[in-house]
């Protein structure tokens, strides 16, 4: 299987920018991955979301509690934004809440009951009026932010674990190598798929025990049930981290090239190479976007603004 991890990504960035793995130049792997993460969260995410093809789309649901009107926006929501505010009734029917201006609230009936409106307050959605009963669920569709890129290294000095086996009944996973330093019960964890799609299979999971009786095959016990799709080969990462860019593989080279541009303009300061790298990024975008848009080739073509990224 091709290498889709950050190992391949780093190699690609270094090739494109002629960037040594050197902290003195600001081009060490951790720095490059930080730069790549910025490009992933910025340019690449925007590019993909701009395709309106459902990349990163996720639903967040939380039961409405009587007397509680404020519900946090999912922390991984890109830009802290949600796509809609819905309430799913006990009958399973959804209704969309209307957004109101908080300044109008004094003029409205605030008697607790079934919420029909909402407004944003800081990082939370406030439903109105205050719920008075139970059985309804608040549903917040949002675009999920990809995990921050980390090196796809395992073992005690690594950044991630690779699942060797799992036991759904016992809620345990066994890793292929010693657990990375810092992988303790004090952390929250994500499961990341290792095949294209690179889906986040589980988020912010709590580990109750780490059994290191076999140091080269530590066993992590989770509080919650393991995700149904979890399989051997998937990654165990610290929450909000990932050893693979969680975008289609075809976008990895755009990510690498965008990072190379950032690298050449920043740490390396190579004016001549930067110009060439920008041209290459433009060429890649032009070559890659038609094949991925639309995702459903039967759908009508959507016009894409070529100047959505790049600022030119």
């Amino acid at each position: 299987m091709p290498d889709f991890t950050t190992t391949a990504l780093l190699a690609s960035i270094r090739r494109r920018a002629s960037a040594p793995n050197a902290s003195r130049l600001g081009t060490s792997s951790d720095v490059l991955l930080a730069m790549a993460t910025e490009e992933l969260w910025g340019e690449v995410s925007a590019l993909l979301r701009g395709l309106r093809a459902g990349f990163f789309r996720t639903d967040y649901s939380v039961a409405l509690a009587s007397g509680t009107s404020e519900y946090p926006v999912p922390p991984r929501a890109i830009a802290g934004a949600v796509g809609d505010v819905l309430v799913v009734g006990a009958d399973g029917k959804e209704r969309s809440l209307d957004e109101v201006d908080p300044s109008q609230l004094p003029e409205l009936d605030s008697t607790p009951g079934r919420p029909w409106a909402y407004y944003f307050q800081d990082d939370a959605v406030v439903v109105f009026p205050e719920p008075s009963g139970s059985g309804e669920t608040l549903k917040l569709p949002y675009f999920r932010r990809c995990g921050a890129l980390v090196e796809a290294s395992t073992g005690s000095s690594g950044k991630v674990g690779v699942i060797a086996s799992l036991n759904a009944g016992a809620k345990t996973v066994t890793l292929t190598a010693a657990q990375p330093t810092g992988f303790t019960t004090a952390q929250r964890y994500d499961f990341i798929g290792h095949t294209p799609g690179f889906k986040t299979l589980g988020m912010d999971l709590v580990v109750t025990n780490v059994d290191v009786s076999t140091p080269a095959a530590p066993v992590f016990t989770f509080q919650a049930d393991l995700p149904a799709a979890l399989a051997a080969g998937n990654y165990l990462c610290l929450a909000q981290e990932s050893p693979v860019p969680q975008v289609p593989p075809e976008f990895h080279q755009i990510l690498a090239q965008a990072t190379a541009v950032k690298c050449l303009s920043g740490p390396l300061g190579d004016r001549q190479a930067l110009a060439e790298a920008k041209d290459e990024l433009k060429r890649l975008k032009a070559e890659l976007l038609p094949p991925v848009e639309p995702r459903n080739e039967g759908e009508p073509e959507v016009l894409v603004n070529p100047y959505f990224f790049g600022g030119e």
Partner: protein
Amino acid sequence: MKWAALLAILLCGCPDMGVPDNVVGVLGLWTDPNDLSAPRGALHKADNIVIQRPGVAETRRGFTTWATALGGAVNRLIDWKDTVLAHYGASTLAKIVGGVKTNLDTAITPPSGHRVRFQEMGGSLYMTTEAGVKKLDLVTSSAGAVLAGGPKAVGGYGSPTGSTGFLTALRSVAYRVVWTLRDGNDRFVTGAPSHRIVVRNEAVASSDAGQTSRAGTTVTVNTAAAHGLSNGDVVYVDSDDANFPAGNVTVTVTDPDTFTYTQAGSATSSTVAISFAYATRNASVTVPIPHLVSLKAGSYDYFAEVFRAEQTQDEDGVPSDELYKVYEYLPNAADRSAGSFTFTDTTPELALGEPLYTSPSQEGLEAANEPLPVAKDLAAFGRSMWYANTARVPRLLLQFNATPSVGTVYGLSASRLEADDFEMVIAGLTLTAAASENIPLTQFQVFTAGTASQNIENTARSFVKVLNANAVASGLLAQYVSGPDDSPGRVLIERNIDTELGVVFETESFQLVAVYGNGARVLSPVPPQFRQAVGASTTRVGSTVTVTTSDAHGYVVGQQVALVVDPGDADPNFPAGLKTIATTPSSTTFTYTEAGNAATLANDFHYFRDTHLGGIAETEVRKNGWYYSKSDEPESVPLENAFFPGNPDKQLLRSVRLGTSLFGFKEGKGEGLWRATGTGPENFDVNQVDPTCELIGPDTVAELDGTLFALTRKGVVRVTESGLVVDSKVEPTLGLVLTDLLTLFAAALSEVKSYAHAVAYETEGLYVLWLPTAAGVTTAGQAYVYSVKAKAWTKWTRAAHSALIHPTEDKLYLGLSNGNVSQERKARAASDHQDESGAAIAVDMEWAPFTGGTPGALKHWREVAFQLQDATGLTGFNATFATEVSTSQETQAVTVEAADGPVRVGIPEDKLRSSRLTVGLERSVAQEKVSVAGFTVLFNGPTSQRVTK
């Protein structure tokens, strides 16, 4: 145009042309200046290459095992008479023919702290050893080396003999003996002459007044003692009586006390005593054979020559020292066994032969060929052999001011007496003064019948004779050295170098002490005087010890004396140590205060001695000694043929000839370099030429390209024939490895001094300087190689304990610490480039960082292309890269398709951007020759300007 030539021109030759800023040549090791000042082409690492053609680095030639397991580290290789000689192990000299060794001598022990040095002269090979300078005459000799220098003649004595001969009555003649070696090259090596042997045709009989009378024409003589004459003997009448005039007469013997002769005159009796001597006699001379001659005569041709003066003109005359040859003798086995030979000199004066070389009309006695100094270095220059860093045998000049009393005992100790020696030390020879001479009992005769001067001379001569008769046992020899114009009684005792006892002369000494009697009082310098305590009469009462001595002690109250005892006879009640005289009740008793048990001394083996320590003879160590021989006589070195340059405490480490100069390298600050000039002993002169040139490695001096290369405190320098010291200030390329050298000095200076050595490879233009690699090692594990053609340094990472450039084969030979000898491969083919047993030679080059002219700015390196030249057979190599950004070295394997031209190499990712790019080349495959003229770099930059959109 070849790459190397182009690069050489670009880098070195053409200031107007400029150097493309991406071209890097090969200029050799450059470890001293900082990288910013290093030119492109400077190498940080240049292992196992040579740069003989300017700008081209090539794999050095390898070596093949030539001789194995000699039996110890090969300390020195020498070419002598087209044969390779090796000094190996502790003390063995061997020749190696066809890789097979044959030991020549197993007693060639080097002088302490030095290696054996060799010098050929007159067909012989001279070598420095701990026991003295030795020599070999023939490479085919099985007799081993022999101490160089003619044997010094040992004493000798004579007397008149027979009833006729050449020596007139009451006249004297003097003899001296010299020993000469006819060496294997038919050269004659003559030693120092013996002392003068004086023979006088003395009166054999005398008659008292009235005991000589005439009746008719018959004179009857009644002698006071048996006269010993025979009928017909011609006798000289030594008479002051006018009635019995002096003159020769023929005697008729009446009885043992009476004889007659015919003489006209009045009938009368003598009024005075009359003496009678033979009218003429011959002389019998006994010549001791030096021990060395006895030892080596079976293998070497030693012979004695005896020289004689003309007889004195009158009976009171002293024979001159103008001596002529009268006898030559090759001692036979019986003589050698007996230790001497005796011959009768019958030579008439008209038949006297050639003069002795020390005669006043010749070179004089001061030109005597004394035993060669023990030397730690030697060199041939100006038709002379020069001996440096010397030691002369211990010598003690004694003066008998009077005759000792009978019973006096002298001791000659083989080691000097120290102030705190309280044990009996008289372990050497003892000589006892007696009424008559008895050699087996080591008794010398105290003469009393003559005048005071005669008694002193005769007694001293007997002392010398008895001592020399025991020369082998004592290791000493003596000469009676009072000359015709000297006061009598002068005796020179010196260590007998002839004994070849493996003496380390630097620490050699001996001492004369007076054991008993009045021996100390009659000598100058005054030796320590011992007094034997009489056991039964030596007691302690209370805290007073009363000592009775066996003869007059001569002590005074308050004097300190040392009580010494034989450890086997120690008496705990009378412990050894310093005592202070409290009282002197009599001439043979004294007291001192010491608490202890009341007791009587158990035995007689307790001695008291003076605390002064005169009479010591020690080796005359002259660290700055620079002796030179007579012209064309390398083994003839008079004591006066010497210079003593500079501080006497600083060694003259090395003497090396260069053209018309002999250079002497001294140790120590301010001592530096000295230069001897001249064409012979008559005009030799020595001057200091550079006090700052302090030699570090005595064996690193080598002549190359008309100059001497040497490793000094200032690094490697060149010395011109005129004495100009060319150091790195004058010739900067000499100093390009100075940092390496100074670092090594700091870490392992003693190892450098001991194991550094060098050879000059004239045909290759190389000075190869082997050095130890670290403190604690016992050999030289690396070589720094300077090419005078390219003015460039490289380094060989292979060990050599010694080295030789074979002059006829023109090959480099290496002596190894494992006892093997390796020979340079020099077929001028690819097969040259491998070491012993086909081992690969590891070429490892690393250039100084390439900056592209902007060492502070970031560059984007795109490609390196190595420029090969004549690299026939090279199939590949590893290119190495490192930067200041990514300091670990990364390697790129490269395949070589052509022997000439560029070989492009990609730069590893992590090395693509930096300010400085360090490029290297490695190859370690047997029988492949790297030959590279440098490399070029393609790069972008500087690129470090910050860019804004």
